């Protein structure tokens, strides 16, 4: 155990860069931005913010992996470094989207809050301690509530934020309750120490309650069924860049934390194949199955493209939970790959929506009609994002699913629930293909009645979307670029 502050500072360099960047954004806006038009303020803030993100990214790579930091409160293993990079990259994509979306009323604050949320995400990616995890999660969540309700002139945005906040707040209470019970049972806060204690004590009724609390809370945060009810409203009402952040970086950070808590921390009470008797595997499997079923089936009935993406996110959350289960045999690689590439595709899809919205609204699926004529660039990018979400090779979304399902079949075949869940997931992917194809049909096939207005895509946003497209193609064709770090 070493409580070395120098080491801690080194490990937290990315977070420091982000916080300094957020303060710089606010400071610049306060000093120089007040008299300027909102677009310029947004551009300046995004530029400063992007520098902070890139600095954080460079820091993350330079610092690299470290063993336990500050008494193992933080764990900078490969998973943490990869997840931090992913989160920062996704935040950069969100910035690119924000540059092409409607300008919010207080642009500098909006950018600063995105940076604070990102700080929360990077901490979640490395947290190895119940209190650090909780604080990081709350930092991220509180920022996301504000980002959801940022467009306060629209009642939908306020409604979305309120719903998200009420559910999220409740989930935090559950989580804290669960954590306190775990602490009470083991007397430890740090995941490794908890694991050692639990290996001796094993399952107990009180621990079962604690596990249920934690699972419910993560179910809420990850928008897994049956705790998903806030998600469609939040995705529908939130400003588009916020929705992109919720769908992408927040998912990646959340699942990284969840994975670290469950396998290294609570692995001995997994139940099922590995542990003895009942454990958390069965409820996680149930939540995963329910999410995939509900998400995919409910998405079929949607006529609003954002709600459709929300239900698709619920379905993907189910598949990621399957990845959490399979991580026992596969290691964290496939789950991280899945969550990161899903984030790129989902954020990209919201990016396309944001640009369309800035040119006259994009809520209904029919608002996409004629996109191929209005902007071939947007249509092409949207096709890649949607096909990646649908899991069509050679895009990254396919390999993510493939690796997760292969791992699920490996962990016991059809004798274990994971195998059956993978079968269910594969069957439902055929259902999902239908609604994704409906989106593309509207955008590319249906002939518009009137000659549509062309869309001018802002250069930064266009570049961001192209980079996201290229990432999905590249990572899809060469998944080893990510996976080899986990070998």
């Amino acid at each position: 155990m070493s409580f070395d502050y120098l080491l801690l500072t080194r490990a937290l360099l990315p977070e420091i860069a982000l916080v300094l960047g957020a303060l710089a954004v606010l400071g610049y806006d306060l000093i120089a931005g007040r008299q300027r038009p909102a677009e310029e303020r947004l551009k300046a803030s995004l530029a400063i913010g992007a520098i902070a993100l890139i600095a954080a990214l460079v820091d993350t790579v330079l610092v690299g992996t470290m063993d336990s930091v500050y008494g193992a409160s933080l764990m900078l293993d490969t998973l943490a470094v990869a997840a931090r990079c992913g989160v920062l990259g996704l935040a950069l994509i969100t910035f690119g989207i924000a540059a092409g979306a409607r300008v919010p009323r207080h642009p500098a604050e909006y950018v600063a809050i995105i940076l604070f949320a990102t700080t929360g995400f990077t901490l979640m990616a490395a947290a190895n301690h119940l209190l650090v995890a909780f604080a990081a999660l709350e930092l991220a969540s509180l920022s996301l509530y504000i980002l959801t309700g940022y467009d306060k002139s629209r009642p939908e945005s306020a409604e979305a934020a309120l719903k998200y906040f009420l559910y999220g707040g409740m989930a935090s209470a559950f989580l804290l309750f669960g954590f306190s019970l775990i602490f009470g049972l083991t007397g430890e806060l740090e995941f490794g120490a908890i694991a050692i204690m639990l290996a001796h004590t094993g399952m107990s009724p009180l621990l079962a309650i604690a596990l249920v609390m934690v699972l419910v809370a993560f179910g809420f945060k990850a928008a897994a069924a049956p705790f998903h009810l806030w998600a469609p409203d939040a995705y529908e009402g939130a400003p588009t860049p916020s929705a992109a952040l919720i769908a992408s970086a927040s998912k990646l950070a959340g699942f990284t934390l969840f994975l670290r808590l469950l396998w290294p921390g609570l692995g001995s009470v997994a139940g099922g194949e590995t542990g003895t008797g009942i454990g958390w595997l069965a409820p996680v499997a149930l939540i995963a199955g329910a999410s995939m079923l509900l998400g995919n089936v409910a998405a079929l009935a949607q006529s609003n493209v954002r709600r459709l993406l929300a239900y698709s996110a619920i379905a993907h959350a189910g598949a990621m939970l399957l990845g959490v289960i399979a991580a026992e045999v596969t290691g964290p690689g496939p789950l991280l790959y899945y969550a990161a590439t899903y984030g790129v595709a989902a954020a990209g899809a919201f990016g396309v929506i944001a640009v369309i919205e800035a040119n006259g609204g994009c809520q209904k699926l029919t608002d996409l009609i004629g996109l191929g004529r209005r902007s071939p660039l947007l249509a092409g990018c949207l096709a890649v994002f949607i096909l990646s979400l649908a899991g069509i090779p050679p895009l990254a979304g396919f390999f993510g699913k493939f690796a997760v399902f292969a791992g699920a079949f490996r962990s016991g075949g059809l004798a274990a629930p994971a195998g059956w869940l993978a079968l269910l997931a594969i069957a439902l992917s055929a259902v999902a293909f239908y609604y994704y194809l409906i989106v593309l049909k509207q955008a590319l096939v249906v002939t518009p009645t009137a000659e549509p207005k062309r869309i001018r895509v802002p250069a930064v946003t266009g570049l961001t979307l192209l980079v996201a497209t290229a990432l999905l193609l590249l990572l899809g064709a060469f998944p080893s670029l990510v996976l080899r770090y986990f070998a």
Partner: protein
Amino acid sequence: MNLLPWTIYLSFAGAILALAAGTRSATAARVIALGTALAGWGVTLWAGCQFSPSDGLLTLTNTTWIESLGIRFHLAADGISLTLVVLTGLAAVAGILFSWNIEERTGEFFALYLTLIGGVYGVFLSADAFLFFVFYEIAIVPKYFLIAKWGSTNREYGAMKLALYSFAGSALVLAGLLWIYGAGNASGFSLTELAAGAATLDPNAQLMVFALLFTGFAVLAGMFPFHTWAPTGHVAAPTAASMLLAGVVMKLGAYGCLRVAMGLVPDAIFWFQPAIAWLAVIGIIYAGLVALVQDDFKFVIGYSSVSHMGFVLLGLAAATPLAVAGAVLQMFSHGVIAGLLFAVVGRMVYERTHTRQLAELRRLPLHRLMPFTAVVFVIAGLASMGMPGFSGFPAELSILIGTWPVSKLWTLAAALGVLIAAAFTLRVIQVVFFSRTEATADAAETHPLPPLTWPEQTGAALLLGATILIGLNPGLLLDWIIPGLNSPLLQAIWTGGAP
């Protein structure tokens, strides 16, 4: 031989080039597409000349791709793959010639078309199941857009139905492959590794896996009762797409049934033999009877396609070397003939008369108005009926002879299907081209139709030439196919567990 992977790379490169060129000039896109397809076909023919049947399974490239799952970029060819890539090259060239008149978004059309072709080449050359599946899916998505965007009757419905059937089928395949990988503890995804993994599964699991794989592929091969996507899809598709669908895409399914389902789980075919054979026979007869009563010219050809694919499935189900060789030959033969029939219906007739209703076509004296088309269709019809001298004859004959020792009943029922095929083919020939009308005499002056263009004549000549060549000398292909049956991937079927 080692040039064969270039068929894949060339097609994808051509797709990008055609897309780029299409924004400036439609002609450039067409020329690029045709050049790409010709180059691809040339490569396959060159490889065919170099190929000696004793080569067995020839590895073309084999490099590590995704190490953590043991996935390799492994392309290989044997006589069976070679037969089918030659068919793909031919069908690609002919399809482009018959879609020379596409004016709307030409670049995108040919980009999707060449992507589809690249995927098909990839499937036929893959020796790694993951790679196989990737190419298989790459071939599915462009089909949807080709039909939904450039198709005709009820195109959005037909395209969606086809895409969903194909995707549902491929989901079954994926489940089967992952099951073998997971439960069989296979070390990787190459077909040989998966076959070894499948052998360790208990017999019931093997049967389940085989059912998943075979059903998944058979959906795309048009097996009864999963064939309903085929007629609607064919009818909705633009000419080139229906030529490709019938010509090569349905072959993907049949090839998957043989190479993946039967190749990986060789014992299980004998358990499922009666079920598959009966479904194949029902498909042959039922689709034939349905074709007999259609009012729409293209639906007749669509159902005839399903009926002929039934022979392929019957040949596979019989699982004797002669029947399987016949099935592969029938894949080639049907690919050529169905492509030709769809070209006549969709391009030569429909785009000039603007109707496909038999009742309306009956009133036009088409044998006077378009004598070349009439001759082409009559010859193609004869080939489709299985007349000696055309490729359908040796193919269906080998299937029937190969099936006879397994079950006389199936053979007789399938032979009945040949008669039905003759009936519906003769019916459309009579109704469309040679019906009596009062206005025969001066029809050519009163209703002149646009003359045939050179791409159409070239395309028709190519396809006719191929079916006659193979009809007169089936040994050209059988010399490739029969040694291919003994390649390491398929050997186990014959030694597996004969009934």
